């Protein structure tokens, strides 16, 4: 069965990823590559992407580490805060970008204009990835209690215990969290596109600009190759870091004061979202509903929900198949991660090149969505599947169940919570997808995300207000759907 699942995943990857990608690369390797690499400007873009990725990881970790230590304690509303911390990660990029504009943009509520500065971009990256890093660091931080206490008993000062025992044990988790943040920031698209101005375009934005505005396939594919190589390296490193086996830990007690302190912290963290809701005008929502100048909200909302549902139906079997196949095969595990390395923009363009007859047809868009979503679904499922005892399956088989039946009736129910979390994550990714949609877009398919982008690009106060209102709506929608599916469990990361 694992073999069959593997075959399914591989054939999908071949059609939906490797073949389209090879078409782009074929254009870029050779002359385009040489031309792009000879141009110092592209190296500048590359270096900035690296800097953005590395510094984002650094800033995020410096905030996530103390936060993880705070969360080792048991205090009221702890789970709610944890759930909240991951909310930004599932927010669509235009929402986050608009949130920061509403807070620190030219017309922001604080009256401080950081638009087009590095600071704003790094703030957005930290906002996005803090919850992700916290989720990875927290389980280790909780389990550190035993070893650190042992060090204290042996006479170490608290600081020394942390430095000599805690930190080394945390290192793998720190590294893998840092690498994940790097991965996301290095290949960021929406935030630098909307907030960075031309100065701070990442490689991904440059690829989009080269293709959408200049049709410069060779240069774009050369840059894409550079991006894939860098991300590939990061993923290889990421896979190397395995957490040390640590004794189970338990939460330390804490007080209400703790809660109050964290509440203030989260209030600050969510200030951009707060500003977004503060500036969002419900009347703008009404004017957007049947807008004649832009895609009406009714259509965009319908599209978003419809596409998300259809793509989930595609991503679910793929994700499950991939998790089953990857459980047994390291190679498949690696191959299945590939979609995370490839920019959505590049995927979209690859489709246009590889399947000219299908241009402008819905299956292409849905395939792109499924491709981008299924690895996340599978990543959430995989640990749960791996921790299942093989005896269970064997028992079912001995009792006469076919492999498929045993899998569906025994294993799936056992990993159901993880599956739900994975679905929630996949849903959030699809609902907020930006890059591939922008490339494969047909006007009648405009989703909520694109409806926001569309309004942002037009003159005047009214479209900007509509964009803010739509962003607030999208934030609510993805937050709500995510919570309904995941219920704050967050068994992923």
């Amino acid at each position, binding site marked *: 069965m694992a073999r069959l699942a593997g075959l399914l995943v591989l054939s999908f990857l071949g059609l939906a990823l490797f073949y389209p990608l090879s078409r782009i690369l074929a254009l870029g390797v050779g002359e385009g590559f040489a031309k792009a690499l000879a*141009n*110092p*400007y592209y190296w*500048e873009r590359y270096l900035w992407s690296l800097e953005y990725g590395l510094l984002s990881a650094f800033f995020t970790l410096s905030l996530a580490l103390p936060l993880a230590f705070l969360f080792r304690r048991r205090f009221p509303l702890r789970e709610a805060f944890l759930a909240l911390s991951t909310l930004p990660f599932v927010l669509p990029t235009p929402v986050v970008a608009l949130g920061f504009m509403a807070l620190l943009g*030219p*017309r922001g509520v604080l009256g401080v204009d950081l638009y087009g500065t590095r600071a704003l971009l790094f703030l957005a990256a930290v906002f996005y990835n803090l919850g992700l890093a916290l989720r990875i660091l927290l389980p280790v931080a909780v389990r550190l209690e035993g070893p650190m206490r042992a060090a204290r008993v042996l006479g170490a000062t608290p600081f020394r215990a942390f430095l000599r025992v805690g930190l080394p044990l945390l290192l793998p988790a720190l590294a893998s969290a840092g690498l994940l943040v790097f991965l996301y920031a290095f290949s960021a698209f929406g935030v630098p596109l909307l907030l960075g*101005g*031309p*100065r701070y375009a990442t490689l991904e934005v440059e690829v989009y*600009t080269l*293709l*959408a*505005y*200049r*049709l*410069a396939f060779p240069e774009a594919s050369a840059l894409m190759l550079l991006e894939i190589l860098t991300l590939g390296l990061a993923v290889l490193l990421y896979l190397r870091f395995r957490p040390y086996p640590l004794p189970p830990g338990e939460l330390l007690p804490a007080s209400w004061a703790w809660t109050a302190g964290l509440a203030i912290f989260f209030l600050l963290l969510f200030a951009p979202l707060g500003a977004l809701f503060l500036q969002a005008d419900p009347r703008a929502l009404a004017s957007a509903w049947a807008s004649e100048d832009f895609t009406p909200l009714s259509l965009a909302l319908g599209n978003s929900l419809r596409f998300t549902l259809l793509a989930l139906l595609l991503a679910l079997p793929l994700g499950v198949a991939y998790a089953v196949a990857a459980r047994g095969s390291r190679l498949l595990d690696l191959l299945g991660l590939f979609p995370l390395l490839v920019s959505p923009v590049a995927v979209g363009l690859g489709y*246009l090149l590889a399947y*000219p*007859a*299908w*241009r*402008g047809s819905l299956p292409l868009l849905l395939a792109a969505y499924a491709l981008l979503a299924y690895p996340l679904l599978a990543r959430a499922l995989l640990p749960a599947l791996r921790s299942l005892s093989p005896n269970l399956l064997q028992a079912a088989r001995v009792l006469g169940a076919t492999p498929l039946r045993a899998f569906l009736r025994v294993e799936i129910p056992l990993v159901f919570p993880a599956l739900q979390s994975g679905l929630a994550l996949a849903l959030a990714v699809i609902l907020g997808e930006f890059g591939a949609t922008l490339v494969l877009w*047909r*006007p009648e398919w405009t989703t909520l995300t694109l409806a926001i982008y*569309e309004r942002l*690009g*037009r*003159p*005047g106060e009214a479209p900007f207000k509509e964009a803010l209102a739509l962003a607030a709506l999208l934030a609510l929608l993805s937050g709500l759907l995510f919570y309904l599916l995941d219920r704050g469990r967050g068994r992923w990361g």
Partner: protein
Amino acid sequence: MLRLLAALVFLALGWAQEITVLTHSSFSLDKGLIARFERETGLKLRFLKGGDAGETLNRAILTKGAPIADVIYGFDNTFLSRALEADILLPYRSPEIQNLKATLLLDPSFRALPVDYGWVSLNYDRAHFKDRSLPKAPADLARPEYARLLVVQNPATSSPGLAFLMATVARFGEDGYLDFWAKLRDGGVRVAKGWSEAYYTHFTLYKGDRPLVVSYTTSPAAEVYYSEGKYQEPPTGNLFPELAFFQVEFVGILKGTKNLEGAKKVVDWLLSKPVQENIPTEMWMYPARRDAKLPEVFRFAPEPVGSVRLDPKVMAQNRERWIAEWTQVVLQGQSPEAVRRGRR
């Protein structure tokens, strides 16, 4: 009633075919005109806004063979060669061609027909310069006290940005234009992604901090027109006709259209007198028809004398290089000499 009846008849006979027009985001026409066209022809019009003019054209090129529209309108003379080379358009000798200004017929194969024209031009905020002196010559812009007042568009992502870049090439020459831009860069010029960001976010008239902006010669007239009586005189003015860039916008029928006859009707309609006379106050361009009357408010938009015109062939050959060189100098901060050395 008649309208309803007509609609019913069309529906019953399956005549209410839809014609899709791919346009840039600034597209706008009077709704009554559109309704009348639909009534008279039984065609249903749909307008797809594809972003900036260049971006829109690229969408059409990327979907060549399975076009997302029947007609494309709005690509300009700076991109004409790309549209023709990509071979996405069908030739069509519209009967209206004889009514168009001959100087606008830039495509002898009649695949791209001119619909309107205008000038990309520097605008300044009159209020800001009431007690301050304006730059006297284009070269003055590069002085630090003016460079930091100017916002331009990125020529890689914006067609007015590209037009202004080309104007500087024409004015300062292949050797000089990079030096000019390097000085603008050092002086602190701001680069916006597109026209609306530049005009509505950074221009002082809309609470930005830049009183000089790259826009159109008709923008001052548009300000008066939209002000609903607030302005009797334009609050902004045009600067340096010798830096104004002549732009023509074209329409073409996309290869692969399923309704060639309908597409032809749309082209004829865009070139017809009522639509042509509607264009000035909707899109702030001049009509391509010789016999189209201009609205009264266009007295604030005189045609600039001595503006820049470039041969489409020259633009086709150099467009990509100019954009790349501009990017290197302005966004990346390379020295003009290094970029010029790199040409060889």
